């Protein structure tokens, strides 16, 4: 019988977040952060992008990118604080701040994606 603690779930979110952010984030960042603003590529029109974003599948993919990535950050940052700064005695506070931040961030992402005009 496995003892119940949230670590496996948190690790899975961390792991999934690591994979999706490593695969998708660089592409999005290069496209929207460099290629379009610097004119390397012809940017799509606002209407075009909005139409893409209105598709529920796009919103689902974006949420699937944002939520695990935030939990990836939370898990990594928590362990960095634990081990890097040696403040393990603040365990609960750190966990609440990190995972709480990820939950709030995910909720904000969900809210924004849901309310695409």
């Amino acid at each position, binding site marked *: *019988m*496995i*003892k*119940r*603690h949230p*670590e*496996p*779930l948190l*690790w*899975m979110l961390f*792991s999934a977040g690591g994979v999706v952010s490593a695969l998708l984030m660089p592409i999005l960042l290069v496209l929207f952060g460099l290629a379009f603003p610097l004119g390397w590529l012809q940017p799509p029109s606002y209407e075009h992008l909005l139409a893409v974003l209105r598709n529920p599948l796009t919103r689902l993919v974006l949420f699937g990118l944002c939520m695990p990535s935030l939990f990836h950050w939370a898990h990594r940052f928590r*362990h960095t604080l634990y*081990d890097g700064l*040696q403040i*393990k005695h603040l365990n609960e506070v750190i966990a609440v701040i990190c995972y709480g931040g990820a939950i709030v961030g995910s909720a904000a992402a969900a809210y924004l994606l849901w309310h695409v005009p």
Partner: protein
Amino acid sequence: MRDSITLQVARYRPEQESEATFDEHEVPCPKEWVVLDGLNHIKDRIDGTLSYRWSCRMGICGSCGMTVNGEPKLTCATFLSEYGRGPVRVEPLRNFPVIRDLIVDMGDFMRKLVRVKPWIVRQAEKPLSEGEYRQTPEELDDYKQFSMCITCMLCYAACPIYGLDPKFIGPAAIALAQRYNLDSRDEGASERMEVLSEHEGIWGCTFVGECTKVCPKHVDPAGAIQRYKLTAAVESMKSFFMPRGA
């Protein structure tokens, strides 16, 4: 080629000093000499009171692990010539209490090792008359890499997590648990999971990867831990969603 090199050897004699000190000795360094040969030279010719562990001097017994110029190394597999003009600083393995000179107390590791049952567990042994447990080459390949571990504890000396939290069960114990978990003849995976899925089991690891870097037998304990994390996470999810079935 230089014919001698300086060895700075850590000394700690609890009956006469409370802190470790260093002795410096010039030792010969022919190109085939390893750090352990230098230590043996000191013990045989210069100072017979120097204490350290060694046995096979061919990378099999795992007893001559020490910190050489800051890195965990098997002293029988580390050539003096790698260090050019020297000096070569030899200290006991880090993260362990020192008993004397270069000898560390490995009790903590031994107690952890036995907890993961690094042997073949069978629910029922079949009678001898039925012959041996046979295995295909593919089944052997599944665990062979992890079976190369010689429990030299270099991975514990390199692991920053073990250094910070001595409760962490550690790289070699997890790699050896996987060596038996992945063995087709073994039936002990669920017993090992109880120990490994604790917070101080696999979840203590943050995948720094130093264990794999220093492993002299290329066991890749970090890889074993990551693989086991996935196994344990999947099992944990299964038992959460199917509390009775799993």
